[in-house]
């Protein structure tokens, strides 16, 4: 693909997103997108340019039966995609306390709901102020994905001039800074690589309050406000 004229790639990507390609051309283009990241990136760029055009289309409320049909198809009794049954691997977590283990699984059930019989393979963390208090924050990253989702289950008070920083902790290794998180609601951190690379040997997550002007600090400067195990769900 390195030998292909960039202008031609641009043209193919634009035509694919605009929708002028024939069935055979579209099928071939999809194959090329999977095989050549450069074409895929150009397609994403065209989607970002053109798809906002639908904001000008008058909305039409779907009939209730459309959602009912979707709901029937995603029934947990009929898994949408084959997943291995959820299994918790805690072999890496030598300081295991059954209370925390129970809390993690219990919270996982609350978060994903009673219908979730098959959970996606993920790295999950539930953080609390100490071992005896319920979690106030959870993190999750799908296996091999590069995004970590963070949800505060209640607001965390942060002094003016400070920000919350999430750390990944591994035994006998300096804490690894993961990113800045919001003190309430949801936030999202773009990881510096696939979750399997970042979290493979991580035992715990922790949160500290760092001065606003220390955006690139590489080590926590104060005691952790929140801590909790990093659990592999698969």
């Amino acid at each position, binding site marked *: 693909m390195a030998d292909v004229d960039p202008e031609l790639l*641009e*043209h193919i990507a*634009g*035509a694919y*997103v*605009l*929708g*002028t*390609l*024939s*069935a055979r051309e*579209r099928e071939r283009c999809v194959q090329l997108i999977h095989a050549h990241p450069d074409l895929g990136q150009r397609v*994403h760029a*065209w*989607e*970002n*340019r*053109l*798809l*906002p*055009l*639908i*904001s*000008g*289309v*008058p*909305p*039409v*409320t*779907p*009939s209730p*039966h*459309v*959602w009912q*049909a*979707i*709901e029937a*198809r*995603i029934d*947990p009794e009929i898994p*949408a*995609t084959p997943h291995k049954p959820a299994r918790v691997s805690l072999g890496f977590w030598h300081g295991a306390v059954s209370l925390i283990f129970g809390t993690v699984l219990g919270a996982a059930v609350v*978060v*994903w*709901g009673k*219908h*979730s019989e*098959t*959970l*996606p393979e*993920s790295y999950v963390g539930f953080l609390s102020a100490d071992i005896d208090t319920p979690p106030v924050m959870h993190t*999750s990253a*799908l296996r091999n*994905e*590069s*995004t970590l*989702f963070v949800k505060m289950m209640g607001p965390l008070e942060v002094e003016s001039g400070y920000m919350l920083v999430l750390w990944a902790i591994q035994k006998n290794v300096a804490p690894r800074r993961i990113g800045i998180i919001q003190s309430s609601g*949801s936030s*999202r951190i*773009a990881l510096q690589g696939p979750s399997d690379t970042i979290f493979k040997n991580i035992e715990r997550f922790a949160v500290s309050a760092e001065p606003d002007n220390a955006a690139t600090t590489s080590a926590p400067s104060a005691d952790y406000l929140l801590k909790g195990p990093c659990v592999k769900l698969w």
Partner: protein
Amino acid sequence: MAITRLKKIAHAADDLADLLARTSLRDQRAFQQLYEITSPRLLGMVLRMVRSRAAADEILQAGFIIIWQQAGAYLPAQGQAITWITSIVRNHALDQLRAQRHAQAAHTHDDYAIQSIADELGALHHLLAAVESRVLRDSFAVLEPEQMQSITAAFYRGLTHEQIAAEFGAPLGTVKSWIRRGLERLRRSIDTAHGRTE
């Protein structure tokens, strides 16, 4: 006022990304919220393409099944959640159109009967006028009339080069040239407005 509006738009985008993330974790309530927020605009889009309510319902349903199955594949770095969702549904609609499953319906359906080309182009101008993005409005304004008409016909109605050529009564090569040059102008204009360069 403008800042408040921008904040609302940004907040809505964050909400959709959050719902999509929860959907990837098989959160059915989040998925239903995502559907309720986005499906009306998506159905409007699909209806303009397939011109059959029954076919549009089928496509919307299948599109959201794909979204449920593939929500974990969404990467925020590649664009907004609504763009990803729209691409899933629109690509499915285009695939169905190209497979000509709904070709018969497109020519015979009475609820959404085909209007004249003039009416359609008029509607497209209204659509463009309704587009909230100043960048898009300004970018389309730099196109030649034939370029804009052929590009909007392809985008909103899902027509191929051949179909546009037939409707416009223009040679196929000419239509391809209009679209290719028009897209190139659009790309430069939108990327310049967003401060992006090759």
